[in-house]
């Protein structure tokens, strides 16, 4: 009990405890990437960060699109983990941890797109000359970059709710059922949004090709 005294707290407060190695790293059966249905006792924000920061970064980058700067993405990834940290105690393992993280990431990104008016700015940036940075496509040729920019321009014209479903399903290979769990919507709504996303994407591609955008 002596160690709990506030007289000892000052010294403890400045001690930086390195993030612990989560037990599920040593026990693949409990892996948050596996069929997780029970919450590991050491499901700490440190463990989640270590295991999923790259996934979250990739998801956020794709959801924001290549018009967002690396600083934008970094800000949003940080906000995602702050949200995860806040919500982690409520995570009960009803879905895979990775699915749940997808949901949190998607909600944070959509909030940011709305709240920061980022979407409008990105659209404006994408309007005439979207440039895909070298850090995004280091080995791509100019024509490949132009094709990528054209596709992204069209994709960014889809409403965020539909675009999120499209990206999760088509690029991240998340199943419809998991998308429904992640976004807390019915599976039928997932398919409807995916359907509309495809239609809007085709329409945008058609306009782009016709020069009528």
């Amino acid at each position, binding site marked *: *009990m*002596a160690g*709990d*005294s*506030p*007289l000892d*707290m*000052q010294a403890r407060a400045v001690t930086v405890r390195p993030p612990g190695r989560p037990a599920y790293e040593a026990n693949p059966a409990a892996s948050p990437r596996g069929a997780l249905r029970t919450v590991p006792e050491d499901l700490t*924000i440190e463990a989640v*960060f270590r295991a999923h*920061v*790259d996934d979250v*970064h*990739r998801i956020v*980058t*794709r959801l924001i699109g290549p018009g967002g*700067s*690396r*600083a*934008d*993405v*970094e*800000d949003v*990834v*940080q906000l995602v*983990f*702050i949200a995860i*940290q806040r919500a982690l105690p409520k995570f009960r393992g009803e879905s895979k941890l990775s699915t749940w993280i997808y949901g949190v990431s998607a909600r944070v990104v959509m909030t940011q797109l709305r*709240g*920061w008016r*980022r979407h409008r*700015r990105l659209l404006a940036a994408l309007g005439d000359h979207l440039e*895909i940075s070298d*850090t*995004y*496509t*280091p080995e*791509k040729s100019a024509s*490949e970059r132009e*094709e*990528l920019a054209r*596709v992204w321009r069209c*994709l960014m014209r889809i409403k965020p709710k539909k675009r999120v479903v499209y990206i999760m399903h*088509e*690029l991240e290979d998340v199943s*419809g059922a998991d998308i429904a769990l992640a976004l807390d919507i019915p599976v*039928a709504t997932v*398919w409807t949004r*995916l*359907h509309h996303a*495809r*239609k809007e*994407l*085709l*329409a945008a*591609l*058609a306009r*782009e*090709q*016709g020069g009528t955008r």
Partner: protein
Amino acid sequence: MSTLLSNPLGCAHLDRTLRLESCDDDARAAALVHAGDCPVCGPALEELAAVERTLRGVAPAPLVTAERARIWRGVAARRRAPSAGSWLALAGVSLAAAAAVVLTVQLGVRSGGAEGDGEALPLATVSGELTPVELADGPLPSAPAAVSGAAGAVSGGTAGGGVAPGARQAMPVSRWVRAPRAVSADLGLARVDLAAGAVVALEPRAPREIDLRLFRGKATLAVSKLSPSEAFEVTTPLARVKVVGTRFHVESRADATRVEVEEGTVWVWETGAENAKVVQAGQALEIKAPATPREVLSEARALLESDATGAARMAGTLVDQGAAPEVEVEAILVVADAERRRGDPGRAAALYRRVAEHAHGGPYAEEALYKCATLLGASGDVGGALSVLADAERRVGTGAIGPERASLEAELHLTGGDVARARTAFGRAAERAHAVGDEASARVFAERRARLR
């Protein structure tokens, strides 16, 4: 291929083709067969597949170590900070002595639109509606700051002395202005609406960086999304608020700074604090001026009965922050009492001894040593308890020992089986009680002495 959608013929089956995943097996097979022949649906599927290939062909550049570290630092800072709700409760007992220091009335700004010229752009110039204010004239509520010079250079200072890490020190301020009525100003990076009476200042800091100092009054700020090379901060005497793109309100009063976030997220550093508190849309954070050490001590004492841990934490903070010696002694005494209540007699006894060391005699030393002796006696260490009592007498003088505490010695001798010394001690306790006019206690002690014959 994309012209297919403008094909006036279209295809009634396109909707079904684009919903393949939600079809049952038969419908999916039928749709695929149809797409194989249809001049609309087939190319549509091919085009979507091509888009997917293009998008999958490039993966976002992975995080670099520095980015990962920055992200984690932000998350960890949030982890260490209490929730917005509990900040309000904690703010009342916050001891950030340096918070007051601050006084950062070191307000300064540069217009976000003016880059590179390095000259101050007074807010009055921006709005044309603000009136200069001399802080030294005393129109502002009193604050723990020393103001010197007509230019309004302000240096901070607190009763507690020193400045906590991160607290801002004195900075020259070229000009203070007061809004005679509600006014608005466009600072380039942000739009600022000042309530009537708000007192602010602007100073150059760095290109594309705005530091709006709000000494008193209310300001509503709408900040556009900033790039990494841009910064916008609002500083009040009690807090520093950093934003990256949001709409929020800041009110600076003599006793508190209140931040309300309407949209987006802001980071708030209590003056002197190393870690920021994150305030998000719909949340408010109020940072109150620090309580005096005496107020904190009094509150800690009041908490002892109901929340010994909380009391120990509050009093411990005073010790950790290097309160004045007389306050520190009382604070350690409170911590010791709290440890005793929490069931840690060993640590409590050690702290009582520490009080005796620091108190240099006097009532606190006496109180601490007798509490220590009581604890040791209760735990069966009669020898240790008697030794502490002897130490107490040595420190505060035999004549100053009160009757109850004198009787403790008798009880300890009784516990140790030394009846003769117990009788002597009861006799001394009766004398002390009589000396202070407590005849009832004197009779009790005398009777107990008599029973030991």
